[in-house]
């Protein structure tokens, strides 16, 4: 554990794996910044359904606009970027990731390491469950004047992936995506190289699943939401299918195994949590502009998040999915269709309810994102249904991804405290107080 300087007043405490994670992400941004010099082609793509192994087979590097946006949010730059996009005519209600990305581009595309990021050479839309992604890339295609490729990913409307759905995606990979990547890079597709990368992915995925499931211990050695954000960093960005990524997850696993053995709670920016008063499941992404403040609202109350859905938007590994070297394109197709954001409402209900049961959570909380209509739609019915299925109390808060105007600290703190007191009250035997006169 080492203190590092942060945007907030007090230095935040980090585990060694967090420092390594920071190094990895830094090296990724360095590779991106150096791309023009090294004549490396870049491919913009999104986290859900990302085809990192395939992209890297061609020596190309992914640019992830959502990651750039959340990094800008954490570095308190997103407010100005969003204002810039609004000056260009984007309305207040448009997805704030989109506006942040557009504003960042307008401001010179300076990445988190302070270096200019290159323009994408190709836009690869490999997940269509978010309609905004498609419109976002339309804007970027206009802005950068680069080619685009679209992989249409069928929605899991009936809660399953059929052989026809899988074949449909594999055919698009073979007929559209791979030829476009070959054209961009000038390199031939090497399926054996892809198999090697997928084997590394599967190993990292095994270790990551161990980390997620370690939260079944009491106390949980990890925070599966706020801390989880650090854990997903490498596998959500450019390191799936790489040796570096594989090594990172092996290191993380060892760190967590030690925590489990020593019965230690999770590391937070304020120090190690020593009291686990509430075990929660959280649905929805965190707020990035006040990330540390948001996290502290939980730790101050002794609440640890034992499982979250947000950390699964880049892959449902803890439900058994693994990238498979024996079925390279087939498993990539399943991966794209299996992201959390591609699940139907009944599937999301089952998923959250199972987390509540499996992780013996005291309750679950939904952080509804104001500017993401497609993901936020249906969250209240989800809440009711999960409450009905589990008998555990649900809570509801509202904020946003990277628009600081949508984070009202007093209101959110009030709701979190009220919710946790409600959970506590339900747990405690009550003395009957009825009958005081009006």
């Amino acid at each position: 554990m080492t203190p590092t300087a942060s945007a907030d007043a007090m230095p935040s405490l980090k585990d060694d794996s967090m420092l390594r994670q920071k190094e990895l992400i830094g090296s990724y941004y360095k590779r991106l910044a150096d791309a023009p010099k090294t004549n490396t082609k870049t491919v913009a793509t999104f986290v859900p359904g990302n085809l990192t192994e395939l992209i890297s087979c061609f020596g190309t590097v992914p640019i992830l606009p959502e990651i750039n946006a959340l990094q800008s949010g954490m570095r308190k730059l997103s407010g100005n970027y969003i204002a810039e996009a609004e000056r260009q005519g984007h309305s207040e209600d448009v997805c704030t990731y989109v506006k942040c990305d557009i504003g960042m581009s307008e401001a010179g595309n300076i990445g988190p390491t302070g270096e200019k990021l290159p323009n994408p050479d190709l836009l690869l839309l490999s997940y269509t469950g978010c309609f905004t992604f498609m419109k976002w890339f339309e804007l970027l295609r206009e802005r950068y004047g680069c080619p685009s490729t679209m992989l249409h990913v069928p929605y899991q409307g009936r809660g399953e992936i059929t052989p026809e759905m899988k074949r449909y995606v594999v055919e698009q990979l073979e007929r559209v995506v791979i030829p476009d990547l070959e054209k961009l890079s000038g390199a031939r597709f090497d399926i054996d190289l892809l198999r090697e990368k997928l084997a590394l992915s599967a190993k990292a995925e095994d270790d990551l699943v161990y980390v997620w499931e370690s939260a079944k211990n009491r106390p949980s050695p990890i925070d599966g939401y706020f801390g989880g954000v650090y854990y997903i960093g490498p596998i959500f960005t450019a390191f799936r299918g790489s040796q570096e990524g594989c090594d990172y997850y092996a290191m993380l696993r060892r760190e967590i195994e030690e925590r489990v053995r020593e019965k230690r709670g999770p590391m937070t920016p304020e120090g190690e949590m020593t009291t686990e008063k509430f075990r929660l499941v959280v649905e929805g992404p965190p707020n990035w502009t006040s990330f540390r403040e948001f996290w502290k609202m939980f730790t101050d109350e002794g609440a640890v998040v034992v499982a979250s859905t947000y950390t699964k938007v880049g892959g449902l590994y803890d439900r058994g999915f693994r990238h498979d070297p024996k079925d390279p394109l087939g498993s990539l197709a399943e991966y794209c269709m299996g992201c959390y954001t591609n699940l139907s409402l009944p599937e999301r209900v089952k998923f959250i309810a199972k987390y509540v049961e499996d992780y013996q959570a005291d309750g679950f909380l939904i952080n509804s994102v104001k500017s993401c209509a497609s993901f936020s739609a249906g969250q209240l019915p989800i809440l009711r249904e999960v409450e009905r299925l589990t008998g555990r109390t649900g809570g509801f808060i509202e904020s946003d991804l990277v628009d600081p105007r949508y984070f009202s600290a007093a209101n959110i703190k009030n709701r979190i405290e009220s919710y946790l007191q409600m959970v506590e009250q339900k747990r405690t035997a009550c003395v009957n107080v009825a009958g005081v006169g009006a």
Partner: protein
Amino acid sequence: MKTYLGIDLGSTTSKAVILDEKGEILGKGITNSRSNYEMASSVARTEAYVNAKFTLFRRALPTGVGAEQLAEDLEQSFRLEQYLAQLRLLERFAGEALDGTRYALVRAEAKPRLAGVFQQMRDESSTLFRRASRRKSDFFRDLAGSSFQHIAEKLADPQTANFSMMLSLFDKAILKVENEPVELGFDANIDAALERVLAGAPAGSREIWRDAAQTARSTVIEEVRGVGTGYGRARLPFPKDRIRSEILCHGLGAHAMFPNTKTVLDIGGQDTKAIQVDPEGIVTSFQMNDRCAAGCGRYLGYIADEMNLGLHELGPLAQTSKRTVRISSTCTVFAGAELRDRLTLGEKREDILAGLHRAIILRAMSLLARSGGIEDEFTFTGGVANNPAAVDALKLLVKENYGERKLNISPGSIYTGALGAALFARRDAIAAELQTAQEAAA
């Protein structure tokens, strides 16, 4: 005697409730919230203790001596003492403000005028505190402000001590009064209050009064435990486990007032809460407005300012409407624009107001729906529950959307949160006693 204290530090008012051992309300106190939450908390608490002492006074009076009227007279006399104590402070601070360098040229002329204003304020103060007198407010700021304003208007001189200068002195002084500890407690003021009332009382009854006052004074009120709630709760001198969210306190308070309550709507100064409670008063679900205070009490306050009306006048005026104007926006920032726009279109004030009240309730209906709907019985709390036009709109919309529901509104609804906090204090104290007893037995 053992008591339990609940304090609710709201954005507009701060309230305190004291319960006795049986869980009955012994005293209630309220003050306007100010920049200094510690002071507001202290004043509300003192007021609740004064009120508790009056409850003890009433209980100590023998039956059949016109106990209620006696107590009412004494309480009014006591309020007058409190008012005069604060007025002395106000005069001192206004005088100090006048000593400031910016008034050097007019000070000599202004001083006697200012003294004259305060003399007249003292002279007319007794009329404010008579049996069954109707005051627009019980807060010193409002009472003294209104009195100062109409007297200063008469005594001001355009050349030397003009009206706006007088008001400026008042504004400076009132802020200091509200942040200065002043002895408003029972023991400090009861003797003077009692003597004033006894001067006009038949000689034979004086001992009854004195005995009852002595009983109230000598009863030691032991505060076993206190729980705080409301937006200023973090500023209360209570440990973390004695601070509760106002959502839980409103749920429990509403349940205590009306034990069959299943749904609670609370519209306060800056937030609206829709709460569902179980048969024990435990909150099972809630929704509240996010980020923006559209449609809350503050919105009505803003509209009242725009229309140059008192807050309490809005509801009755809206009730005279024959044709409700359809207004969908409850944005507090746009309220003024919306209002002027409608007036320009020739709409009547009462019709616009009726529309604004309906719009507020429509927003509350959305929160209610999202929290799980409206079950029987339904209890409405918070300052807006005192507004008759808001209540009318609520009744209508509830009937349209959910059918017949029994709507409970307590005259003491503003104390719901503080009552819930006091109940938590009592509950926690009993649980702690039980635990201690169990540990001792083990």
